[in-house]
């Protein structure tokens, strides 16, 4: 049951079912989203969680037998096995609309700066760390991606391949 970089291994439900002490559990992954961002656990009720490579968690709407040796399983979702767990931009765009905590709302110009991959000074009196960044689109708030807030600055975490001048 060692961690294999080519196979997807389903996350154990809880600590009690865990062989690899470093592997995240389903319970901990869901708790991370509810505790830090207020996304209800029900948002993930129909999904299974998988690890491929150290700490790279994927989210899949299906239940194949574990492990599964293929190229991709659903979407990349979360980075674990580091001090601060980090959601992916894709996960935030898909599920971050239900977040109620650690959400920073930007105006259009600030959002464009963020999507271009640039850091910016920002007043924020909440927690430091990874935040869900939102802006208004078509009359409603919409999640854009993940920012890292430290020392009065919002650091864009938009992956290079997703950056755009908008």
């Amino acid at each position, binding site marked *: 049951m060692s961690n294999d970089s080519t196979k997807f291994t389903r996350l154990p439900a809880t600590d009690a079912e865990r062989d690899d002490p470093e592997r995240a559990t389903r319970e901990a992954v869901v708790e991370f989203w509810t505790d830090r961002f207020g996304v209800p656990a029900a948002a993930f009720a*129909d*999904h299974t969680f998988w690890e491929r490579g150290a700490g790279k968690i994927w*989210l*899949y*709407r*299906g239940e*194949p*037998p574990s492990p*599964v*040796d*293929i*190229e*991709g*399983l*659903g*979407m*990349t979702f979360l980075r674990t096995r580091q001090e601060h767990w980090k959601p992916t931009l*894709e996960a935030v*765009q*898909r599920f971050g609309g239900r977040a109620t905590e650690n959400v920073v709302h930007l105006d259009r110009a600030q959002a464009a700066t963020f*999507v271009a991959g640039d850091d910016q000074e920002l007043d924020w009196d909440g927690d430091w760390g990874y935040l869900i960044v939102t802006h208004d*689109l*078509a*009359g*409603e708030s*919409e999640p*854009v991606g993940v920012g890292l807030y430290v020392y009065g600055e919002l650091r864009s975490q938009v992956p290079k*391949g*997703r950056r*755009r001048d*908008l």
Partner: protein
Amino acid sequence: MEPLGRYRPIVDDFDAFRAACERPLPSAIRVNTIKATVDRVTAALEAAGIAADPVDWHDRLFVLPEASAGGNWPYFHGWTHGQEEVSAIPATVLDPQPGERVWDACAAPGSKTTQLAALMDDRGEIVATDNNLGRISALRTNTERLGVTNVAVTHEDGRNHSLKPFGDAGYDRALVDVPCSCEGTIRKNPDALEDWSLSHVEGVAGVQKGILTRAVQVTEPGGTVVYSTCTFAPEENEAVVDHVLEVEDCELVDYDLPLTHRDGITEWDGASFDSSVTRAKRIYPHHNDTGGFFCAKLEVTG
């Protein structure tokens, strides 16, 4: 344009056909209903000053007469995906339902895969296969941007598709949108016919037969297989379907397509095909001002 001359005997108003093939196509987008609604996309494009003309036969498609598909906020959010009208036909015809198991045999770069996922409301299981790692990377980028979570990606030749990773479970439906000589994409890519040769057409037809055969084999009896190409060549269209009718237990079924089209042909270049291939449909550029396409719907019987 020489390769197209061979279709003079089967295309009505050949001069109009040839003229349409020389006109460029505007970009088009599909609304990704996994992340947005048609209304929100329309509002976001309007706010950005991007003109979007609805397509009359498909309520999730829009033509952008003056803009490219990417480079705008709705695209960044994965609300939209660049996809030509005719490219939206096969997934619509396959009509997958939420909760089903579907095989997408030649999936990259994923326009049709993500359309299948949206039609299934991101529920059920789509196994998306491609034999090229570079194109799989593009497929993964697209499924992620569009927020799809029910797609599993496999790297293999569709002719030898394995059911093993999923416990040998078969499929309810399969989409077989095969690599082809791409004659129908000439309006989008004027270089499409530069390397055209009859030997390439015949070679790729062999691959197409292999993939379609495998798709019928892995689909459960009563299940649906849709075969499509973006080319006019009967060797890659009716002849391939005729082949699978001979070697596997399946039959061609009729379907509605609210676009002007012509029936599949039963004779070509001295060969004759099963009479049911007329249930397949040919889409020509001069009829609906689109690209060219071929689409056949099969039911697995055995």
